[in-house]
């Protein structure tokens, strides 16, 4: 299979300008002006130059050799920038595949009287361009996965706030699903915060949790038990009627855990347990808020 792309390097070099024009046109027909003409031109010029080098050094039809490293690196960059600009995988791979037509046209002109050579050259170029195209699509996929991983990490960070409501009273508003690894982190950060603030009461609000099944209940019970061992009482709030009915049918016993339907009720209970109360002031002015 060696020495298969004998024509490619010189062919590319000789016809760089006309290839470039046709290649850019072919891409613009599909992606329009999603990418600026100058940027596209620079990308195409750079890549053609790298392809000339690579095909000059490596005469095989594989892109796994060291000669292709720089070209592939550039493809990865192009792929990444197109991913960020919202291109689909096929639109991204088009960068490479759209080079086929102009190249084939060129070959036909050059090798018009040598059909055998023409067929060989077509096959060699197809193999190379297909691999490069697939590589681009793969890179596109990888960039997407990076975005997803980063977002998942962001969510872990963002969704675990432990809020101090009052001296000795913490609140943990839970949002989303509670049966993932996240739950563990949420629970651990609560226990950590309890220790730091030496709080007497922690309110776990599950208003934003759509489903409470046995695993979620188990997580909640474990957290409450752990907090209790540290000397902190927990109140679970945000138990809506449908969740209450479901828990009952499910047969889960929340035992002696204090529960309230709203965060406000839980806060009131927490205040009274710590010997405080909220009352209206006699002078009804908006500037006067709650009193300790």
């Amino acid at each position: 299979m060696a020495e298969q792309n004998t024509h490619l390097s010189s062919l590319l070099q000789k016809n760089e300008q006309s290839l470039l024009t046709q290649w850019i046109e072919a891409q613009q027909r599909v992606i329009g002006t999603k990418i600026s003409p100058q940027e596209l031109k620079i990308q195409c010029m750079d890549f053609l130059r790298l392809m000339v080098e690579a095909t000059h050094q490596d005469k095989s039809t594989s892109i796994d050799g060291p000669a292709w490293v720089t070209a592939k690196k550039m493809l990865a960059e192009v792929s990444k920038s197109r991913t960020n600009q919202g291109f689909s995988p096929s639109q991204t791979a088009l960068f490479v595949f759209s080079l086929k037509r102009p190249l084939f046209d060129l070959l036909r002109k050059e090798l018009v009287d040598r059909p055998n050579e023409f067929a060989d050259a077509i096959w060699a170029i197809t193999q190379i361009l297909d691999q490069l195209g697939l590589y681009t699509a793969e890179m596109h996929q990888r960039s997407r996965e990076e975005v997803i991983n980063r977002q998942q990490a962001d969510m872990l960070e963002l969704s675990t706030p432990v809020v101090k409501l009052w001296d000795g009273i913490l609140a943990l508003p839970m949002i989303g699903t509670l049966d993932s690894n996240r739950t563990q982190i949420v629970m651990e950060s609560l226990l950590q915060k309890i220790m730091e603030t030496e709080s007497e009461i922690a309110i776990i609000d599950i208003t934003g949790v759509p489903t409470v099944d046995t695993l979620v209940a188990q997580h909640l019970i474990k957290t409450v038990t752990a907090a209790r061992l540290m000397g902190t009482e927990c109140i679970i709030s945000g138990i809506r009627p449908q969740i209450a009915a479901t828990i009952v049918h499910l047969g889960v016993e929340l035992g002696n855990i204090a529960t309230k339907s709203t965060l406000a009720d839980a806060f009131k209970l927490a205040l009274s347990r710590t010997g405080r109360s909220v009352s209206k002031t006699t002078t009804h002015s908006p500037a006067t808020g709650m009193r300790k």
Partner: protein
Amino acid sequence: MNHEELQIRTQSDIVLVRKAVRELTAKLGFGLTDQTKITTAASELARNTLEYGLGGHLEMETLKNDLGKSGIRLTFIDQGPGIADIALALTDGFTSGKGMGMGLSGSKRLMNEFTIDSEMGKGTRVSVTKWK
């Protein structure tokens, strides 16, 4: 009538199962409490499929009986090791894993109809139905 299949291979598939079931029950016009009950049962059974059945799939069907009442049937199928003693598995508080042991029996209470077939070494099939 209507038929949909969902794979249960990873933890995040369970989230997708819940979402799909919740959407379908809402579309069928179930009340909020029933939506929550059905979704919770689906969550329990999907997790069983993943943890004990080593993955499988869910078949979701919408039904209509002779009286024109509509309903939903969820069938969880796995090719896992199977359940040795179904009566024991349906006992409140029994678990062969780390859970509370309430998932299977709880799902039965949350739904109207419940059937379970299991064969050692072949897999398990749990089918639950809720009528409106």
